[in-house]
């Protein structure tokens, strides 16, 4: 079937290929015939040439003349004879002799071989010759050279009858000669005509041959053109087919991406409800059932994530979102998650990090964890005893670049060569029974390796059956410089562990009732006050009417979606409402979505399903530690405990400034600066909202310069941080910096007032 389909569009070439095999023979044949024809033409030419040469050599026309001359001279002789016999005239022997000799010489010519050739076989040739010879024999007695007898009329009279008798034979000889010559000419003409005809035939044949060859050439060209056209058609056909295939693949990816959200949403509802159920007071059996249900749900979620990841990887749409990652923190997280699993199987779990490793690296935290979880859970899954070790070290890659290497080693059942070979192929799971028991999609290793390769690294494995396996995950090492001192302290004196900010008014914009219930439970459990909006329009309206501390915004909502609502909120006239922190709740994983959120002015993301830990961590980040920290306490000059916070006022600079200008002038300038402060803050916020990094930089730079001149160090530092971070620091960080600037502005102003720098004495402006 396949071969037929393959040959289908190529069928036309089957024909010409057959023809080509006897094409040379045909051409050879034509060539041979051509040569023959040319040879024949040459032959004709040669024959004609020979014919003409022969005619020149034989001189037949002159032979005829010779024969006529005999007759002419004969009559002259006879006339001389008669005249010589006239009695009145004296005999002119000389003249007669001459006449006779001339005639006889002509007779001699009759005898030569040319004449003989012309007249051969003619009866009228031999007869007359004999008679002539007889006469000459007798006449020579009188007129011959020896001259035995005298020449007189009587002797001539005796010869006369014999002479007369020669008239008719000589005449017929002439006529015969004439006929013969005419025949010869006719023959020659005929021969020439024949040659001409043959020549014409040959020419005609040649013409045919030329036409035939021309026709063959034309045919060949036509076939070539046809074949070319077939190729062109085929190419177009293939291109079309490929486009269709690509379009289909694209459609499939889009479908999958859309479906992922649709699948996940009820899912999260399910998971959320299950987790809430846990806290509603269940008996042991119910707890057991719940755990099974939760495990199944988790497993299903894993499968879903794997499938989505696979689809993204295959279509090349999976993008990594790199950020500075604290390696040790990452390892701790991984360890804490894997420990329960290891403990269940009585396996020891060791983590070992090379001390020379940098503190922070650029990496996609989620994906790195995903790979590590995959490798570690495999190690745990396939080991019944012993220890699972995760080592992290710095190595040099093949290209010479620095790499991070995570090595997961176990003392499990190991794998044989065959299994190793199939390892990274999808759906191949080393030990079928074990996999079935422990679950798994079979996609895990393939995804891990694809992700690693996407990062610029790889995942490789070695194993000894019965002893254990070792998986090595390598990725390029990109160190991140330690954080700048000017980076804002989120919470001076914030506690490290439990607790969170005081009760917050949280607006949750979420269209799914199940999810709303879940968030309500979650937030209330943390001690916050949740409020709800069912869509974007309601959310914006809520912000118009009331103050909230933070907004959790679902992206997909009817009427107005998360992005649109954010844009509207940021455009609110009320500054406090417009700058409320907005956190996106999103189920889909595309980088484009994140970008859109940032561009709209959202501050951060939370992936759905929302885990309580992550939510509280985020709120902590935004609002600091436990309740008790009020605005008042925070506006005090920075305590020495936070040694990285710069002082509000630098007195040296102030003194310099005071020396440079009159006190009143400085006061006026300071006052102007503080009066323009809020305006600047507004401009900064607008620049952030609109994504105008340049505006941000320009304004921040101006503020920095001014603040530095006045010795407002803390302010200057913040402005500096804004200026430098405008392009690459995440939007929510910038927002925080702007807020800090605003706070510092107020504190600096208070400090200046306290020191009497703003006193206006005499103002002469």
């Amino acid at each position: 079937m396949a071969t037929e389909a393959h040959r289908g569009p190529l069928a036309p070439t089957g024909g010409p290929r057959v023809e080509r095999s006897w094409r040379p023979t045909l051409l050879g044949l034509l060539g041979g015939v051509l040569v023959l024809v040319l040879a024949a033409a040459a032959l004709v030419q040669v024959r004609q040439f020979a014919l003409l040469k022969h005619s020149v050599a034989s001189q037949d026309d002159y032979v005829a003349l010779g024969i006529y001359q005999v007759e002419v001279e004969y009559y002259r002789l006879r006339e001389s004879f008669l005249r010589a016999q006239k009695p009145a005239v004296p005999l002119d022997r000389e003249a007669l002799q001459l006449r006779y000799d001339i005639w006889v010489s002509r007779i001699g010519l009759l005898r030569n071989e040319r004449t003989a050739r012309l007249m051969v076989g003619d009866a009228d040739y031999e007869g007359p010759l004999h008679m002539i010879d007889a006469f000459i024999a007798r006449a020579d007695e009188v007129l011959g050279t020896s001259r035995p007898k005298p020449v007189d009329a009587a002797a001539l009279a005796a010869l006369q009858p014999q002479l007369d008798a020669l008239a008719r034979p000589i005449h017929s000889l002439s006529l015969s000669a004439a006929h013969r010559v005419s025949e010869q000419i006719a023959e020659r003409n005929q021969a020439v005509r024949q040659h001409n005809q043959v020549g014409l035939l040959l020419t005609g044949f040649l013409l045919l041959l030329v036409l035939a060859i021309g026709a063959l050439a034309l045919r060949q060209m036509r076939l070539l053109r046809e074949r070319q056209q077939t190729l062109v058609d085929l190419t177009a056909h293939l291109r079309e087919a490929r486009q269709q295939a690509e379009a289909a693949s694209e459609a499939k990816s889009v479908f999958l991406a859309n479906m992922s959200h649709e699948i996940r949403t009820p899912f999260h509802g399910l998971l959320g409800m299950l987790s809430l159920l846990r806290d509603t007071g269940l008996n042991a059996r119910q707890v057991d059932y719940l755990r099974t249900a939760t495990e199944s749900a988790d497993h299903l979620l894993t499968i879903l994530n794997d499938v989505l990841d696979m689809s993204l990887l295959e279509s090349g749409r999976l993008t990594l979102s790199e950020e500075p990652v604290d390696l040790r923190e990452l390892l701790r997280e991984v360890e804490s998650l894997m420990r329960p699993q290891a403990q269940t199987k009585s396996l020891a779990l060791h983590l070992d990090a090379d001390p020379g490793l940098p503190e922070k690296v650029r990496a996609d935290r989620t994906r790195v964890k995903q790979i590590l979880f995959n490798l570690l859970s495999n190690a745990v899954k396939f080991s019944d005893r012993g220890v699972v070790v995760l080592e992290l070290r710095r190595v040099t890659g093949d290209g010479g670049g620095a790499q991070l290497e995570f090595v997961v080693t176990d003392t499990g059942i190991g794998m044989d060569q065959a299994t190793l070979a199939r390892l990274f192929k999808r759906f191949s799971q080393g030990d079928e029974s074990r996999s079935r028991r422990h679950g798994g999609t079979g996609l895990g290793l393939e995804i891990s390796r694809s992700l690693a390769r996407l990062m610029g690294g790889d995942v490789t494995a070695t194993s000894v059956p019965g002893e254990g396996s070792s998986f090595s995950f390598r990725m390029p090492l990109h160190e991140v410089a330690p954080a700048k001192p000017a980076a804002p302290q989120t919470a001076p004196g914030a506690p490290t562990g439990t607790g969170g900010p005081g009760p917050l008014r949280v607006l949750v914009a979420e269209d799914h009732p199940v999810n709303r219930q879940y968030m309500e439970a979650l937030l209330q459990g943390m001690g916050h006050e949740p409020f709800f909006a069912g869509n974007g329009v309601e959310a914006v309206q809520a912000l118009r009417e009331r103050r909230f501390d933070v907004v959790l915004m679902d992206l997909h909502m009817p009427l107005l979606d998360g992005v649109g609502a954010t844009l509207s909120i940021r455009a609110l006239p009320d500054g406090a409402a417009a700058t409320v922190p907005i956190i996106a709740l999103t189920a889909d994983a595309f980088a484009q979505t994140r970008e859109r959120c940032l561009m709209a002015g959202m501050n951060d993301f939370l992936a759905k399903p929302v885990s309580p830990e992550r939510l509280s961590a985020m709120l902590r980040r935004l609002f600091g530690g436990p309740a008790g920290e009020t605005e008042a306490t925070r506006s005090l000059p920075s305590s020495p405990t936070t040694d990285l916070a710069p002082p509000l006022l630098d007195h040296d600079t102030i003194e310099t400034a005071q020396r440079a200008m009159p006190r009143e002038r400085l006061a006026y300038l300071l006052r102007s600066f503080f009066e323009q402060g809020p305006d600047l803050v507004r401009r900064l916020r607008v620049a952030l909202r609109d994504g105008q990094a340049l505006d941000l930089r320009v304004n921040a730079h101006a503020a920095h310069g001014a603040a530095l001149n006045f010795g407002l160090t803390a302010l200057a530092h913040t402005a500096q941080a804004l200026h430098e971070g405008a392009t690459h620091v995440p939007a929510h960080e910038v927002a925080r910096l702007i807020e800090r600037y605003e706070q510092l502005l107020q504190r600096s102003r208070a400090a200046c007032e306290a020191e009497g720098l703003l006193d206006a004495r005499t103002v002469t402006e």
Partner: protein
Amino acid sequence: MLCLLPWGMAHGLQPPSGRVVLTISGRVGKPNVADAAQFDMAMLEQLPQHSFSTSTPWYSEPRKFTGPLLRDVLAACGAQGSTLRAIALNDYQVDLPFDDAQRFDVLLARLLDDRPMSVRDKGPLFIIYPFDTRPALRSTTYYGRSAWQLKRIEVR
């Protein structure tokens, strides 16, 4: 008389003493009788003799011809022109270009195989081209110009 003849040739043509065998008329510079130059056989014998053998259409085998060069004969009587009309005893006539005598060693033969030619033998004089020496002469034109039984040449 005989010994004086060569000297006589250089300065003028003596009239013939024997039977006239050739008369050259027309544009003749040194006539010896009226306004023509007449030669007898002795006068022709006095001129430098040449001979060659050649095959001809009139004899089946090659024959040796001997006689003075035609151009020498023409020079002897101061003949100058563009055409020579050769006329034979039987009133056969043919035109030759004057140049032929200069270009080719055309013989005015008087001996055939070292024997004088009688009228019967196509004598006494025969204009012969060197056919064997020059293949170009073996054509009808030149055969036609080879007049035998030569009687007279008119120089035009």
